[in-house]
């Protein structure tokens, strides 16, 4: 962190102690959300999400592969995240960091547990099925990568079109049916900073946070959760945040659906 960042983190902490935020939002408000799909023509699906100053790009490639031995009648979903060095002064090149692995796995779990992508429908024939490779590219970091990536992955998948299939291989000259989506999962990530809880933390707020909790839901039930950082949450606190997450789902879902049309 630069000297300026340290000052900003201190400022953010002082504000949060008073229940205020650096951008005047309420404690349980999201920043402005923009979702654009169809950004990368060569990808079967893509979406760019801007969440305040955080920007992520998700790209989906559909590949014909042998199904996994434990799911011989299903396609496959492969999620990875790249914290690109161009996104933040603190990101470095090299093998995937624990933070990027956690990010990709948490987004993957919600979408998989919600059965969002119809993996059974991605079976083609004996020994052949579609694999959806979802790559989450972090382009600019200003906090809350979890929710930004969840929106981007979901919008990219929901807007994806399947390539053709000919003679046992993908035919990328054709884009035929849309990928089949069974449900839409959205996530809300809360931070705990000196016992105050805030939704959608900025980068400075994340630097000040003691604890972090991501709740992923399809609007009916909880699909995945992940607590991060060293700070803890009580069961009562989590119960309240689950209810908040259910409330936020409708709006987030609407934004994803609007981005596809």
């Amino acid at each position, binding site marked *: 962190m630069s000297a300026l960042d340290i000052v900003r983190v201190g400022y953010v902490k002082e504000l949060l102690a008073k229940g205020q935020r650096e951008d005047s939002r309420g404690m349980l408000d999201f920043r402005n959300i923009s979702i654009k799909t169809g950004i990368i023509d060569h990808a079967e699906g893509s979406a760019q999400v801007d969440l305040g100053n955080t920007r992520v790009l998700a790209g989906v490639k559909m590949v014909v592969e042998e199904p996994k031995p434990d799911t011989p009648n299903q396609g496959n979903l492969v999620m990875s995240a790249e914290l690109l060095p161009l996104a933040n002064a603190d990101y470095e090149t090299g093998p995937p960091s*624990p933070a990027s692995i956690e990010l990709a796995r948490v987004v993957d779990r919600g979408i998989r*547990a919600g059965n969002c992508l119809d993996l059974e429908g991605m079976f083609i024939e004996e020994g052949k099925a579609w694999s959806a490779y979802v790559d989450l590219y972090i382009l600019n970091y200003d906090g809350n990568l979890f929710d930004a990536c969840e929106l981007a992955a979901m919008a990219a998948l929901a807007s994806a079109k399947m390539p053709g299939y000919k003679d046992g291989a993908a035919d990328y000259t054709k884009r035929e049916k849309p990928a089949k989506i069974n449900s839409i999962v959205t996530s809300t990530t809360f931070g705990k900073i000196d016992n105050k809880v805030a939704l959608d933390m900025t980068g400075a707020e994340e630097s000040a946070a003691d604890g972090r909790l991501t709740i992923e839901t399809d609007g009916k039930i*909880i699909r*995945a959760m992940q*607590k*991060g950082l060293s700070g803890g*949450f009580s069961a009562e606190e989590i*119960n309240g945040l689950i209810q908040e997450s259910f409330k936020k789902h409708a709006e987030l879902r609407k934004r994803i659906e609007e981005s596809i049309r």
Partner: protein
Amino acid sequence: MGSSLNKPELIVNGKRLDGRDFGELRPIKIEAGVLKNADGSAYLEWGNNKILAAVYGPREATPKHLADPGKAIIKCRYQMAPFSSLGEHNRTGPNRRATEISKVIREVFENVVITSDFPGSEIDIFIEILQGDGGTRAAGLTAASVALANAGIKMKDLVYAVSAGRIGDHVTLDFDMIEDNYSDADMPMAIAPRNNELLLLQMDGGLTIEQFDEAVKMAIGAGKTISALQRDALKRVYETKVSQ
């Protein structure tokens, strides 16, 4: 959650496959101070899980640029042995799953270890799953807690961990491997017994908010048993030392 293909019946006549009730833990045995070289260690059997945890440190932090002049840093490595699962041979070394588990376990101990006592140093926690049968992260974390205490490292609390989830309509405690593979939701938790705060929480599958509450209650209930076993393991080490 595993494939729906060949899904076995996990509940027969209102009992689980191994005869347990929904809220019943598997048998747990903990022994502290089992490795000579380590500063602290523990061996734990939890059902068919066999787990070794060892702690080295506080010792000088390496590489030097990682050292924090204000506190000790904690490193954690959770790993499954290549021979630990019933199926195929696993590759050695951390995969993506193990990397994530190591990270969330490290964050739990960053909460409870009083790191400000040891500026510039590191505390290494090694968790080796010798035999895995579901719930290894919870069992490994429970063992690591004992190993840290055995190393004489000051902590705010002796954390325990346990997993709860859902099979059909039943909220269920402590899945073994087959339940883990075919359950409808799984939620590992680590809890600080002094205030019941959740320090590790992961979940996937599907839970209603009522099922979430029930699962947490079940975990806290089971925590009394687990905590007692942890303390007992530590007491035995020092009682033996005194009697010698």
